[in-house]
């Protein structure tokens, strides 16, 4: 098996706050293999974005503290890399796409200028060759009048168009890892579908690995090979997407799926999860989901670890432990 593109071990991140430190990430292990599309799913506060941002060194310095864990990208330990090396890595071997396509593009420069800059920065292509590359990238994104688009400004384009351009730019330097943080949340469903399709196809075509962050179970289920379900800064379940979502082994994953109105009977109340996410200033000692879990019992006062519950399928729950024992 090749080296993982991204490997996170025992990551703990906390944010200093005035009423105490906020323990946002509490021991996350995660890996992304070459060519793999990995989903990171969870509700707000689950720290799925924080985990990814920490891995890419994107959190503002001083605002956080990584108290434990190691991160390696393409086999290199991030801790040993300088700021310059990190910058070179980002936009080179690692690309990123964010939720708001408006803010990622410079409003005062044409699409063409911005694309050429990225291409020239990270490849040997110059002038017309670089321009041809840009057009090719846009065509791959099903943008037909690519030459014309190059002369446009971001505000002249729709959100879907902008996001497709950003994906095109992300692939400009043939990244080995693409981190996509809720790339379609701000888009309409028809556009979302198109963007997801293009992203998926391009990743498969170039063999890039994707770390896909989303709160949308349905999107995750269709897009990803393997997923991590996060809750309160911990991974509670992981495994192949279809397995985890089709046969959830952690009560939280199960409850989440049950709460979807998709299969609900309009006449009956939805199966909601009572309560709210725990306060991470004083994270619970044991299982973080304990307080909201209908299966909670004495064992849940100590922290469960991820254990195999099937082929490549893991869950962090004492309940499974008991069953398998």
């Amino acid at each position, binding site marked *: 098996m090749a080296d993982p593109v991204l490997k996170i071990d025992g990551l703990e991140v906390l944010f200093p706050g005035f009423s105490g430190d906020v323990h946002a990430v509490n021991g996350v292990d995660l890996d992304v293999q070459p060519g793999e599309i990995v989903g990171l799913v969870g*509700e707000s506060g689950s720290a799925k974005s924080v985990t990814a941002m920490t891995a890419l060194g994107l959190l503002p310095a001083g605002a956080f503290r990584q108290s434990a864990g190691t991160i390696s990208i393409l086999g290199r330990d991030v801790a040993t890399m300088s700021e310059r090396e990190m910058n070179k890595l980002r936009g080179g071997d690692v690309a990123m796409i964010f939720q708001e396509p408006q803010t990622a593009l410079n409003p005062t420069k044409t699409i063409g200028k911005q694309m050429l800059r990225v291409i020239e920065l990270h490849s040997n292509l110059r002038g017309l060759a670089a321009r041809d590359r840009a057009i090719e990238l846009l065509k791959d994104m099903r943008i037909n009048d690519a030459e014309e688009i190059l002369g446009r400004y971001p505000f002249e384009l729709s959100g879907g168009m902008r996001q497709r351009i950003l994906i095109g730019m992300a692939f400009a330097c043939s990244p080995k890892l693409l981190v996509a943080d809720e790339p379609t949340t701000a888009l309409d469903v*028809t556009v979302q579908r198109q963007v997801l399709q293009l992203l998926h196809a391009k990743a498969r075509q170039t063999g890039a690995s994707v770390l896909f962050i989303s709160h949308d179970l349905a999107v995750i289920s269709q897009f990803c090979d393997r997923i991590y379900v996060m809750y309160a800064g911990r991974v509670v379940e992981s495994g192949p997407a279809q397995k985890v979502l089709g046969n959830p082994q952690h009560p939280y994953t199960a409850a989440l799926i049950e709460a*979807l109105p998709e299969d609900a009977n309009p006449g009956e109340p*939805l199966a909601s999860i009572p309560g709210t996410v725990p306060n991470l200033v004083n994270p619970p000692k044991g299982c973080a989901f304990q307080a909201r879990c209908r299966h909670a019992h004495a064992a849940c006062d100590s922290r469960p670890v991820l254990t195999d519950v099937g082929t490549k399928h893991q869950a962090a729950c004492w309940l499974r432990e008991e069953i398998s024992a």
Partner: protein
Amino acid sequence: MTIDSVMTLSNIHMRFPFGEDWRGRPHGFVHALNGIDLEILRGKTLGVVGESGCGKSTLAQVLMGIRKPSEGEVIRNFGADHDVQIVFQDPQSSLNARMPVWRVITEPVFAVTKRPKAELRALAADLAAKVGLRPEVLDRYPHEFSGGQRQRIAIARALSSDPDVIVLDEPTSALDISIQAQILNLLKDLQAERGLTYIFISHDISVVRYLCDEVAVMYLGQVVEHGASDAVLAAPKHPYTRLLLDSIPTMRATGGLGESLSNTDLPSNRNLPTGCFFKDRCELAGVGCDVRQNMVPTEQAQVRCCQTAATTPQKVSA
């Protein structure tokens, strides 16, 4: 059976001028609504779905009465002043962070008439209990609450003037799934208890299917399909409704993401297309699509598409 409609919209048009020249004459108009006919039934929930730019928000404003349509008529079958209330999408910005919760909740009341503080507080306490908030929260400020609780506060506020109709403008799209379920359940309970009429604006088809009795699908300022939600969403007739439903990712889908759509851009609402608005994106487009389409009743719903109407046998009214 007589239809008890709480509001009737007939042929509503809404256009806004843009880009005035030096004499104050507009360069043109944005055509936000282009002939909306809707009957809103008392005690029922009407879902309004469509993509951004389809005119949902403008429609909500017309329903609220804060915008007067450029054309057409809104008939309200109730008398009181505060008959339509609204719950916004983002509880972060729809609640003033500088007001204590009890003031937030009772604002629709004290914004128009002076009432003693005690009376307002009592009202707030009553409503807070209704939406599942503990009474001690009344003196706190909105930022101290989670998204779900904030949306409960917003709902309590909408209830404070005892409205007949509540417009729910994507009330759960900013919430986590687990919280969304709680809010949807609350809305259902309140409707049952108070006989409220909901107009539920959403892009989330599965929520609409769960919550709504009827659904109206909007495209470029028009309703293109309108009918009972289970029927419409199970067997969409209009090609746009179908496209919309096909686009929605579901956990049960097996075929992956499928093929990419080639044209996802909405036509401009500054210069309305001639003929059928959906013509350029429609796979069925053909003869007859060069003229404006009217709503045609089909077996289960009304559809604004001549092609479907022609192939679907019309239900003979009973």
